[in-house]
Structures are given as structure tokens and as C-alpha cells.
């Protein structure tokens, strides 16, 4: 096994498009790292550079302790799983999986042994003599995996391998890929645009946007401590609510004013984010996760700060109630990761906020509601730079 290092890797296409900027990424031996971002963010290009399918314009790529910038894909000791599986349609499953071994001139018995071992691992044994056209999507996906594992590579590279499967199968294969990677202990770089896939699968997740790496961390840290507004809004569904507030830290009760409301900031909040002092009296972007809001009636005073909102939509999901509501406050002028199509309510001023409430809540569409705010779990961002305010 091996670790993979990208040092200041850049990709500029012939037409001048700068797809990847100064990408630095260390993947340790046996780690599962997910590259995630919206389409066109450069994540696939980065992966294809590691595979050798795209040339590296500038920077260094190290696999194991070899610089492999100019090494042919087949000599990088990697395996690639494609989004469309890229199976050879004229070959049987057995031939598909064994193709790389055959090209390496392994003996016939060795090829058979390893193909069958891979097939057993992926429960493909009974399909070995079928052609890809006769298989279902999930089976084809497993053949693609088989083709990767049979070579016992140093590194797995996967380019949205589950995106062509239906939702149910995707969840199942997600677990299966995870288990396989864990059992084999092979260093893996996995590309997806699906943040749920990224969160559930990766040991660490690297978020990219517009060719720049935004943040690399464990899924929980990304969620709890996003470095900037892009990561904050990209990770998490429904996405984080953003409102504009004014800090007032001078008095005896440091607080932030949001529209007609005022959130008192406890000493713990300030201690954790010493950087806030520098923004005293200034406007900051406040990020509120939907689960940091709760029906004040159910919260029963545990969180004293509240907001009054007009409920515009109530979605009961059984385990929770998702309320779309309007808060009388200012909208920050920032570019966020994704436009939530559900959140595009028109009419009325204020900010659209989404809250995940206890299912016992009595909030109703068209009524006013009072929601409590968990101030300890607020996120603060500099409106000018979009960076999180922490230290």
C-alpha cells in the first residue's frame, strides 16, 4: 500500500481554462478520502490527474515515494472505477475482470484464481460467463469494482461510481464499497458531487469549488467547523441558514442583533471564537443549522434566545418536522454553494429559514411561531471574505 501526495498541483487546459489551482492533498496509507464539490469544481480533473488520464500542468504527484507525474497510467499501480463503469461490452465478466492480468501476462491458472477470488468477494460468481449487457446496473458496478480489486493496486481511484444507480441500490453499494475498502485497506480517492455520499464514506472529505480546495477534514469537523461559507452551505441538508447580524460585544451582555431579535452570546461562545472581538459593532454573517432551531414551546427555555417567524411550509417527515419560515432580518450578500430549490419562496421581505423541529411541534402553515436558537452552535462568518470567524 502507499500514500498519495499532491503538491501544488495545477491543471490548465489548452484553451486556457484553469481547472485546478494549487491543490495540496495528503492521503495517508489506507485512508479513504472523498473529493466533493459541485459539478465543474475540478474534482474529476484532479482525480484523472492522479490516474494519469490528464497531464499535470504544474506541481508534483507522489504515489508511495515515487514522483509519478510522467509515469504511464498502467505503471502507477492504481485502479480506476468509472462513473459509467466502462466495462468492455464484448467480453464476459470473467474476461473483463481478468483483462489487466492477461495484459500483464500472468499465468492462466493465476488469472482464474484471482478472478474467482474477486468474484466471490463481490458475489459475482454466478455471472462470470455473462456479458455486461446482460447484467443489471448494480452488477455492472460490481464488475467494475472487481476489475479494480483484482489487480491489487496501491491506490483505488473512483469517479462517481454510484451515481448511475437508483437510490436504494446506491445506499446498499455505498456500504459495500466502504466494507470492501476497509477489508482490503487500500488507499482510496473517491470523487462525488453528493455530499451525503461524501459524509458517509470518507475518513476525510476534501471540499472543492471553482478549482480551489476549500477544506479537508473529517466529516464531523467539516459539519461542525466549516472554514468558509461555501463549505458551510455545501455540507448539510437542508443547508445552513444564513442571516446578517450586528455584533455588540461592548456592554455587560455581549450579543448579536438579528433584525428585531437579539441573541445573547455566552462567555463560552466568545471564548471559543476569540476572533469575534475584532468584529465588534460590525455586520457578520450568522449561520444557523436547521437543527439548531427548535419550537420554543418544546424547547421549554433551555435556549433563551428566540426568533419569531412566519411559517410558510410545514413538511412532516415522521421523525421530524421541517418548517420553512420567514424571519424579519437582512439577507447577507454572499455567494453560497447551492441554491436550495425548496427555499426559493418569493414575496415578503426577510430571510427564508429552514428549521428541523421535534415532530410534536404545533407550528402551522401561515401562523407565527417562536423558535429557540442554540446560540452555542451558531457559526460566524466575515461578510467580506466569507471566512469563518474563529481565532
Amino acid at each position: 500500500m502507499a500514500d498519495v501526495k499532491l503538491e501544488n498541483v495545477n491543471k490548465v487546459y489548452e484553451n486556457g481554462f484553469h481547472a485546478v489551482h494549487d491543490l495540496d492533498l495528503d492521503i495517508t496509507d489506507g485512508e479513504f478520502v472523498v473529493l466533493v464539490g459541485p459539478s465543474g469544481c475540478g474534482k474529476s480533473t484532479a482525480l484523472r490527474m492522479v490516474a494519469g488520464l490528464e497531464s499535470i500542468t504544474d506541481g508534483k504527484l507522489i504515489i508511495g515515494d515515487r514522483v509519478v507525474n510522467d509515469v504511464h497510467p498502467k505503471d502507477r499501480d492504481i485502479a480506476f472505477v468509472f462513473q459509467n463503469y466502462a466495462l468492455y461490452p464484448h467480453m464476459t465478466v470473467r474476461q473483463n475482470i481478468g483483462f489487466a492480468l492477461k495484459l500483464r501476462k500472468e499465468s492462466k491458472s493465476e488469472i482464474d484464481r484471482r478472478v474467482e477470488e474477486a468474484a466471490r468477494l463481490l458475489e459475482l460468481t454466478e455471472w462470470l460467463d455473462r456479458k455486461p449487457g446482460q447484467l443489471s446496473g448494480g452488477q455492472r458496478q460490481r464488475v467494475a469494482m472487481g476489475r479494480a480489486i483484482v489487480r491489487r493496486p496501491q491506490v483505488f481511484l473512483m469517479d462517481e461510481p454510484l451515481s448511475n444507480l437508483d437510490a436504494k441500490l446506491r445506499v446498499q453499494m455505498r456500504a459495500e464499497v466502504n466494507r470492501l475498502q476497509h477489508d482490503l485497506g487500500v488507499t482510496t480517492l473517491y470523487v462525488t458531487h453528493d455530499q451525503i455520499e461524501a459524509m458517509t464514506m470518507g475518513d476525510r472529505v476534501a471540499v472543492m469549488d471553482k478549482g480551489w480546495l476549500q477544506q479537508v477534514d473529517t466529516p464531523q469537523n467539516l459539519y461542525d467547523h466549516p472554514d468558509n461559507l461555501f463549505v458551510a452551505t455545501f455540507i448539510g441538508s437542508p443547508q445552513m441558514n444564513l442571516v446578517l447580524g450586528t455584533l455588540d460585544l461592548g456592554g455587560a451582555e455581549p450579543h448579536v442583533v438579528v433584525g428585531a431579535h437579539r441573541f445573547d452570546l455566552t462567555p463560552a461562545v466568545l471564548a471559543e471564537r476569540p476572533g469575534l472581538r475584532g468584529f465588534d459593532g460590525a455586520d457578520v454573517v450568522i449561520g444557523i443549522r436547521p437543527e439548531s432551531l427548535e419550537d420554543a414551546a418544546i424547547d421549554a427555555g433551555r435556549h433563551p434566545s428566540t426568533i419569531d417567524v412566519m411559517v410558510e411550509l410545514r413538511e412532516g417527515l415522521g421523525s421530524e418536522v421541517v418548517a420553512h419560515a420567514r424571519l424579519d432580518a437582512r439577507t447577507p450578500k454572499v455567494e453560497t454553494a447551492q441554491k436550495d430549490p425548496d427555499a426559493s419562496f418569493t414575496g415578503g421581505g426577510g430571510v427564508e429559514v429552514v428549521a428541523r423541529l421535534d415532530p410534536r411541534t404545533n407550528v402551522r402553515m401561515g401562523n407565527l411561531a417562536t423558535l429557540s436558537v442554540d446560540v452555542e452552535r451558531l457559526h460566524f462568518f466575515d461578510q467580506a471574505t466569507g471566512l469563518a470567524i474563529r481565532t
Partner: protein
Amino acid sequence: MAIAAPPPAVDVDARAAHPANEPVGARTHRVLGSLPTAVLWAIVLIWTIPTIGLLVTSVRPEADQFGAGWWTIVTNPSLTAEHYGNALFDPPGGSLPFSDAFLNSFAIAIPGTLVPIAIAAAAAYALAWMDFKGRHWLFIGVLAMMAVPLQMALVPLQQLYTGGAHLTIAGTTFIVFPDLDLNNKPVAVWLAHTAFGLPLAIYLLHNYISGLPRDVFEAARIDGAGHFGIFWRIVLPLAKPALAAFAIFQFLWVWNDYLLALVFLSQNQDASPLTIQLVNLVTSRGQGTELLPAAAFISIVVPLIIFFSLQRYFVRGLLAGSVKG
């Protein structure tokens, strides 16, 4: 209370079956709708009649052939296989028997098909999937060759075959193409057919091969296949429908060719194909005319067999690349 009987349903099918009840507009539409099919059948019939006439004439005794039209066979049904026997094994005036000319045609058509396909497939792969400078213009250049008329190249080709090509610069002569004395040898015809078949072959195969999914090629590269491995193990098997379609076209074209065989092989009776022998059958004294229909039929047997046995490839090959399977 009794359940009321449902109202009598209007039987749509029954009404359509009685044209008298059919609305005028619908009837016009129906009649006009079948018009294209009728026209097509008429065309098929008109084009088939001469062939049927040829077949009938070829099996009638000489006197009947010249006495009246072929359709009189209905009133005078005497048949003979004599003309086939004579044409195949014993033609008048000592010209080459058709059984030999038949083999000659194969000896020309098979290499004349396989050689251009082998070259074109490799060229099409290179033009579609290998990155090199000037690829685009090279492809356009190849396509432009389709505009070169065959007739224009005959004389230069013949000179090339008999004398080679030489270039004299400052008193030194360079051999551009050696004098291989190819004239009147089958290889001369193979080369000419290869040269003239290549542009279209490269064009058709390029269209198909460039439509194969990119990630299959990338997967093969990562699996360790080089260009030759990809070509041999991936491209050729996947391009089979296109290869088959072009092979059929090229084979029929070469089989039916008269001009190239006349120019490059007419001095060599023993190697000449059916098309040449068909003309030679009638001697200067007019003998052998009665064998012509039988001989003509012998020469179209192979195209007919190929067409009917492989006709599905015509359709599939022509659609190749346009519809992803």
C-alpha cells in the same frame, strides 16, 4: 330493481371494416398513406423484370432466345442448362472458361476487400483516438481524396506500375517508387482497389470508432493496454458491425468492377475476372452470344448471395454510430 343494460357500445372496429361508413377524410388519409408503399413495390417490380428476363433467357434453347421475347416461355416452355455448362467449362474461341474467371474474381475481390479494411481500421483508430499534431488536417486530407476521380489516376498508376517513379535532382536520380513491373498482375488491381477504397473506408470506420465511449479506452489504458492492444482487443471486436458493413460494400464494388480490371489485367487472360470475360465471351465472329445471359447470371450469383445473407448488416452498418446500443 333490475340493473339497467349498458347502452349498446359503438363498435369502432366494425365501422372501420365497412368503408361505406367510413368518413371521407379518413378514407382519403388511408389511401394516401399506402401510396408510398405502392410506389416502392412498383419500383421493385420494374427493376426486377430485366433480371427475371435474364434468368429466363439463360435457360432457353438458342433458337427460342433469338426467336421471340422471354415471356413467350409461357406458351413454349422448353428449358436447357446447356448454356451454363458451355459458359462455365467450354466457351467458344478458346476464351477463359467461366469457372476459372469465377475463381479469378475471388482472387481479386478478397484481397481487394481485406487489405483496405485492415489499413482503414488502423488509420481510423489513429485518427480518432491518438493525439498527434496535424491529426485534424490529415483527416480532412484523407476525406478530400474521395473527390479524386478514379479515371484520372489510371494513366499515372499504370506508369508507376511499369516504370516506377524517379526523381532527378542535380544529376542524381532517386527512386521514389521502384519499378516492380506490376502491370497485368492481380496485385496491381489489389493496390488500385485498396487506394480508391481507403478514403471512404477510413471515413466510415472513423465515424464509428470515434463514437465508442471514451472511458472504455481509458479503462484499457489503465489496465495496461498500449495502442496496439487497445486496437486489437477493444476496437476491432467493438467495430465488427461497421467492419462488416464496409466489407460488404467493398467486396461488391470490387467484384463488379470492370474498369480497373480492364486497365491493369486485360493483357493477362488467365488472371482476368468475370467482368472482363463476360465481354470477351462474344468473339469477333459473333459466336457465343447465346451464352451471355447464362454468363451474366453466373457473375451476379455471388453479389446476390452476399446481399441476401448479409442484408441486415447493410442496415445496421449504415446506422452504425448514429444510434447508441
